[in-house]
């Protein structure tokens, strides 16, 4: 029997809120699927579109960018720039026909460990029926 498809997600987490939030999930021992590999960045504002495209190209089935809630950015306004940039990237990815579910953005505060686990759980669940992401994945 074929093994169940396990999507692989890359999550760009800002250091001060989302990464701290996911740490909190850890400290609180909230279980969530292991399909996500976190990459801590200083601020969601530092996530370049190239990071996202690159992750898809290197085989990510889903990409998450997560930062502080608006107004809570450790760097005051980085997440506002991120919000604009990500909206544009998302538009383009959908325009070329990538499944919109594969690219997500969220606000997760340092206290929202639970929210983080829910986001990951839901993400994995929506990705499973989609199967592997092959569109942007590098051809051998």
């Amino acid at each position, binding site marked *: 029997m074929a093994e169940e498809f396990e999507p692989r997600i890359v999550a760009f987490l800002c250091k001060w809120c989302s990464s701290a939030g996911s740490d909190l999930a850890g400290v609180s021992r909230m279980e969530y699927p292991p399909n996500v590999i976190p990459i801590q960045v200083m601020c969601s504002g530092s996530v370049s579109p*190239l990071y996202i495209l690159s992750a898809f*190209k290197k085989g990510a089935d889903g990409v998450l960018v997560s930062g502080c809630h*608006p107004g809570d950015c450790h760097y005051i306004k980085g997440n506002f720039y991120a919000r*604009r940039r*990500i909206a*544009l990237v998302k538009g383009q990815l959908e325009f070329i*026909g990538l499944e919109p579910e594969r690219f*997500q953005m969220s606000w997760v505060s340092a206290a929202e460990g639970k929210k983080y686990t829910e986001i990951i759980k839901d993400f994995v669940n929506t990705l499973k029926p989609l199967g592997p992401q092959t*569109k942007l994945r590098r051809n051998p």
Partner: protein
Amino acid sequence: MVKLEDLKKEATQILKSGKVKYIIGYAKGAAGFMPIPAFISDPEDAENLTWNPACVHNLTKFIVDEKKRLKKEKKPDNRPIGIIVKGCDSRAINVLLQEKYIDRDDVYLLGVSCEKTGVVDEKKLAKTLKGQRVVQIDFEDNGNFLVTTESGSEKIPAEDVLAERCIECKANFPVVFDIVFGEKIKRQVDKPFQSVETIEALSQKDRWKFWKEQLDKCIRCYACRSVCPMCYCDECVVDTISFAVEPDTSAEEKAQKIKWIEKSPNLSENIVYHLTRAMHLAGRCIDCGECERVCPLDIPIRFLNKKMEKDAKNFFDYEVGFDPDQPSLVSSFKDEDPEDFIR
């Protein structure tokens, strides 16, 4: 109507007076009806200038070239360059100003009106004329072109052969100029993003099918990048083809050069190239359509930029090239920017 004679007179005059170093304009090509970019420094040669619906090129690209040349010169001649700009080209000038790539007095702008029409799409024209060879094409009154072929002249409604970007053009009259030729006649544009909407209307599967086929064709000749006046980076982030190695570039820097895409012209690499380019043109592309025109494989890459333009307008109420003093699209934000896509 633009009076070519007036244009030539002004050109001769500013060349004679030394007001400009040279003029970038259009002149007749060696073969066929398509004009070629001309660089005129002798007042006598101003006679060669031409202006007609086949003047498709966005000449501002050559201002960028000039800037690059000047940077390398020891004793640069910093006199302004005269340049002929259409509506879209003039918006490119505004973006270059906005990005401080040029100063306003680096250029002397000879604006030309696209009248009520715009420029021609060579391929559409060929189709309409079913293979007859065009010798000359001119503006006519009332939104028509006068096309002279080997077998005679005929009037064609411009709409039938207009370049796509002209059909969706927001301002077919220069938005910035020092002197302008021709009248400002606004053409009604009801659906400025119709082309994009046709793609958006496709199902996600069909959109992918469409782009997969199109982007698979790309041979990465980079003509789309090379022709674009906004693609002026000395080194493009997505590949190393123009790695700006300078004598002081350290070994570390060379080693660190990231391979965001590989040299292989594979679909995945092509997509990253094209999407990155689109992202990098967000809020900067003024839709001169040159990238698409030059593509030897007829890949409709303008769609990607147009989509970006549409999102910028709809999400952020941002329009490109009208105001050289506005902050750029991605280096600004508003509190009320949409975030319904964020969880």
